[in-house]
């Protein structure tokens, strides 16, 4: 995490950007989104990062969507990015599952899309539902989980972003995690 030396600048930019209704991309905001997405997609052991250009564009577009509330601080901004990412990925997973169930996937042209195994280590749609339920009870806990999972942050990062103690975040995280684990089918 870069330290939050210039959050206000970032937020001001974003506000101005949305106010202007500027369709042009703001490189700073874009980069922040891109950085988050890439941090998310980096494998632990290798430094390999997917470029994920389309995903980043999509997340950016959702973030800049003027219907959306403007971020008040950096934490809020990051939460919005994580939220956008969560929406995209869960929507995608949902679509994928629907397609699989529908079985309507005939073999036609250009049959060499990269292999997408389909099976995930964890069902994102179920996770999303459990997370929605948790958010209904306790938004902070849900936010921490969201930042952990959909923005790829460590407990320490989350503490920095939310501006609270690491111990607090860790405890909240453990509670939220145990809760989610107990709510998800094995």
């Amino acid at each position, binding site marked *: 995490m*870069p*330290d939050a*030396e*210039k959050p206000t600048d970032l937020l001001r930019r974003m506000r101005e950007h949305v106010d202007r209704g500027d*369709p*042009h*991309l703001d490189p700073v905001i874009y*980069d922040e989104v891109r950085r988050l*997405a890439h941090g*998310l*997609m980096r*494998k632990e052991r290798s430094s390999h*990062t*997917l*470029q*994920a*250009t*389309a*995903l980043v564009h*999509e997340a950016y577009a959702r973030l800049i969507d003027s219907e959306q509330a403007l971020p008040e601080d950096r934490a809020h901004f990051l939460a919005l990015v994580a939220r956008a*990412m969560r929406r*995209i*990925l869960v929507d*995608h997973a949902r679509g994928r599952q629907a397609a699989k169930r529908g079985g*309507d996937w*005939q*073999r*036609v*042209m*250009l*049959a060499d*899309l*990269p292999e*997408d*195994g389909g099976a*995930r*280590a*964890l*069902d*994102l749609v*179920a996770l999303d*539902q*459990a997370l929605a*339920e948790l958010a209904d*009870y*306790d938004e902070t806990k849900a936010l921490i989980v969201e930042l*952990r*999972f*959909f923005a*790829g942050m*460590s407990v320490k990062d989350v503490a920095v972003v939310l501006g609270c103690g690491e111990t607090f975040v860790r*405890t909240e*995280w*453990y*509670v939220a*995690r*145990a*809760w989610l*684990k*107990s709510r998800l089918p094995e």
Partner: protein
Amino acid sequence: MNPHDTLTHEQFDRVARAFQTIIERDLQGDEARAWIREQSADDPVIASRLLDMLAAHTGEDGVTDDDRFHAAALEAVRAEAAAADEHIDQVIPASIGPYRVIRFVASGGMSTVYEAEQEEPRRRVAIKVIRLELLTKESIRRFEAEGHLLAGLRHEGIARVYAMGRTETPAGQVPYLVLEFVDGMSITEYAEAKALGVRERIALLRRVCAAVQYAHDNGVLHRDLKPGNILVDADGNPRILDFGIARPFDETWSYAARSASGLFLGTLAYMSPEQAMQTGTPPDVRVDVYGVGAVGYELLAGRPPHEIGGLPLHEAVKRVVHHAPSSLAARHATYTGDLSAVFSKALATDRERRYSSVRQLDEDLRRYLEHEPVEARPPSALYQVRMLIRRNRTTFALLGLLLVSLIAGLTIALAQRRTAVDARAAAERTAREATRDRQAAELHAAWSALETGRIKDASELLDRTGGDATGIEWDLLRARAYGAAAIRELDGLGRDVVHFAADGGSAITRDREGVIVRVDMGMGTPRPLVSAEGGGPGSTVPRGAAYAFAAKTPGYAVLHTPDRLTIVDAERGTVVRTVEATAPVVGAVDPDDDLFVWPAGPQRIPRLVDLVRGEIVHDPRIATHTAGMRLSTVLHGRFLLADGEHRIAVVDLTDLSVTRIERVDLQAAAWPVMDKSGRYLLLPYQYPEVHELETGEVWNVGAEASSYVLDGAFSAAGTRLALLHANGEVRIWDVPSKRLVHTATDGRITIRRRPTGLSRRRSGAIAFDARSGAIHTIGGGYAVDWPTQAVSTRLNHGFGRKPYPYVYDLDWHPEGRWLASVAWDERIVIWDTWTGEALGAFDLRAALAQAPPERQPEDKRLSPNAVMWSADGQHLAVQCASGWSAVWDVWSKQLSFTGPLEGALLRLEAGGDVVLAGADGAATRVTLEQARRAHTTYMKPSFRSESPPPWALDRSLGPWPTTAWGFTWSGSKVAAGRHPVTGMAGAFRVWDTDAPDRIWEGLSSGDVLCAQLADAGRRLLLGMRAGTIQVFDTERRKRMMVIQAHRHYIMALALSPDGKTLASGSGDGWIRLWPLTPAAERSQRARLAAAQRRRLAPLVERHRRTSDSLAEALEALLRDDAIAPEDRSAAKALLLRASR
């Protein structure tokens, strides 16, 4: 999840609080369960939930932040993200033209396919649309041209084109093709599903042949035949899809881009070698012969010709290009030699050996089915001759040309003369193409060597290729070859004393068995040297023996045991001579000379041995200077002596002057390091210090390090000092400024925690490579080539100034040594690129504050777009997105101007006047005085992306209709990229000021962030968001190369005025310098020589005409004042050549 056990908010709060306590008090097992019982006695729902949570929390993987659940979630997110990234841009339109879209089917490299429904006649169709992000005039033209061609194809074996059209999208009009929708399975799946026999499979393949041949007869190539593109419908009729639509990667050279798209690998297994190799040879029908052969091969053998699954891309390409598929007979004994021969011929790596048409392949298949002998046979003698001709095409072409010229000379027929001219042009073209192909192949080989970490192979290949290649691709690859870090494990070596040779390219050490070995950096296994006993390579030497390379004579090494000095020729493995000693030999080799020194006799008088001649040099004067001190070592012609009182003395052997240093660490005095000029002395170890001998100044070079310094090395110029620490770190100091400039480290290397006292043992060594400037280290069992730019050519603009240290722009001082950078931190920093030092900085905020309030922009954001030196290098200007600009007089540091400039800053003239590009595209020159008085308004903040391109100053090239980004101009070319998101990703445009209507709309694979023209406009370098530098040839209009620079995006590129260094500024705040020397130097030299010849030719010609003899002409020439002394030898050569 059971919806019935939903908790109320109150219940949830109790659960959360109780569980929080469990965590805070770290309650375990029974304790925790007791607590749960206590807390939830009244509510079994809460109790059961808490117990579930407890079980989940104390699962088998313990309590950590990142447990398996977390890992699983991250993995799922990551996988979904990867999958989503593939599909997400498929925003499915509800309809395309009159067709109702049913679903998205697939996305290829160039286009997207939807399944749709047509109303009249009611049928299912497939609709193919260009991917929006690849939309250019050129791609539309190609798509539509091919569509027209395809629409003409009417064959039962080819999916039909029903219609073509254009549809309105936010990106403009997009062409589409309406195709027959084929409902079926791939040809291989069909054959398996129906369990077809061999003859039925061949019959099926023949129908494919017929369809492909039909297309060929109509002038259409498929170029991408594979089972997935040949579907068989329910009635058993094969249908070929995806015919001939422009392939996106036909003319490019980037494997990186193709592998990133993921499309290439799926296709590679069926791709002809000439396509896989991407030599630029235009594909012909033999590409499809290969394709049909590959499909047939899989039909019969059950697997594709090349199994490349799991191979890295470059390996896979190599497999396809260099290896013939194993024969069918080898795969299955049932296939006879004939059938096997047919497919070997269809799949020949060399296309000359393939069937020259699909019809011929089809004929041979027919012959096989009808039991006739097939045509395919092993290579014939004729083939061998053809290959010979092909390999020597140029020679044969010239031979032919000679014949034609003779005939022309005899008949003097104009027509034939024209033939000769044509033939000559053709021969020249062929020769040029052959050279280019060879260069491309060699560069490709070097590139793949780099990819596989064979750095030395790559640099050797490049050095070899360099004889002809002059492009910047070569320079960049070479920069990378010398820039890639390579860590090699030495299998137990490098734990004993290590000595580098003077050029830093190899080192000498002793292995575990006591054998003295030579380690060549970069590659190769360590080789044993001859031993001290003269017992031949591989003999062991005792532990007390010391060894080193001679400095001047390459390959000579010295081994010294207590009673003998052995000089060996390490190249030949022979003993050159031995010198018996009268006293125990403990000494050292001068790192700068072929001299060995040891203290001899009771007075320990230093004796010098000339290693090459074997003479002992003894200078009695030295003794007087060394009384009471013990000789420690010899360094660059200087003795270093030490006594027990922590004093050392440095005696210069040329004038016997003595410099004394007090209070030193004697351990350090055992292995001192000196720069070549003898100005600086490094005393390493625990308290590493550099002593400047002339001034007596001392500075500590270990203050921030936690580890001993084992060895150090000064760069050739003495401006950089590299230190090897015992923890494996390499630290680079800038000597003149006494600053630490870089720390490089690799976690694997630890050399030794503590050095062993005063013993003369040093188990790690460091050296600068005289050839490449890279740094080599050996120690702890590893040999490392530290990357050049990592250790010496990275400048950190963002030094201590986080968090967004984007380097926005760079500009070289006209003299080529200083570089100005402007970055997010709102400073301009001026760098000395020779030393890597920051000379000074200009603060943009301070300059803004000096502007009168009415001349300050309302929007006070400073997003600096451009930094620019004046033509005379005296002034420096910056312009921000708002239009606010500042100009400084660099040497007085005075602000010459602060305020708005209306127009994009194009050029800064000597004296500080500015040239601005106005909104109309015309350039205007404005003096600073005018600018100060002008009533200018501020530009819109989005100025940068909407500004017109900087036209050549005297002519407008017409505005570019879309957003532009990163202008560059060189020679007659002007280029710019388009805005990465709002413009089309990856698009760029090149204008030619000599031919305004020759505009090239190019497309790169990725987002262009900056552009730089090089080689007088012949090459365009693009800095990409992905951290690559793409190189395009603006004349041939194709991409030459993609250099993977690093992972951060490249936001600025600047080529130094002498063309020797490319500076790149990136999103991580670093400025990297890419040393590009030889090719640039060569072309520069060639240009200068050509200019000189042009200048001298008329003078030389005059003397030749007016003189009677050559001697007279020569004399006149040398007396001619019009010819400058430095031009005389060139003039002489010209004269001699002209007279011959």
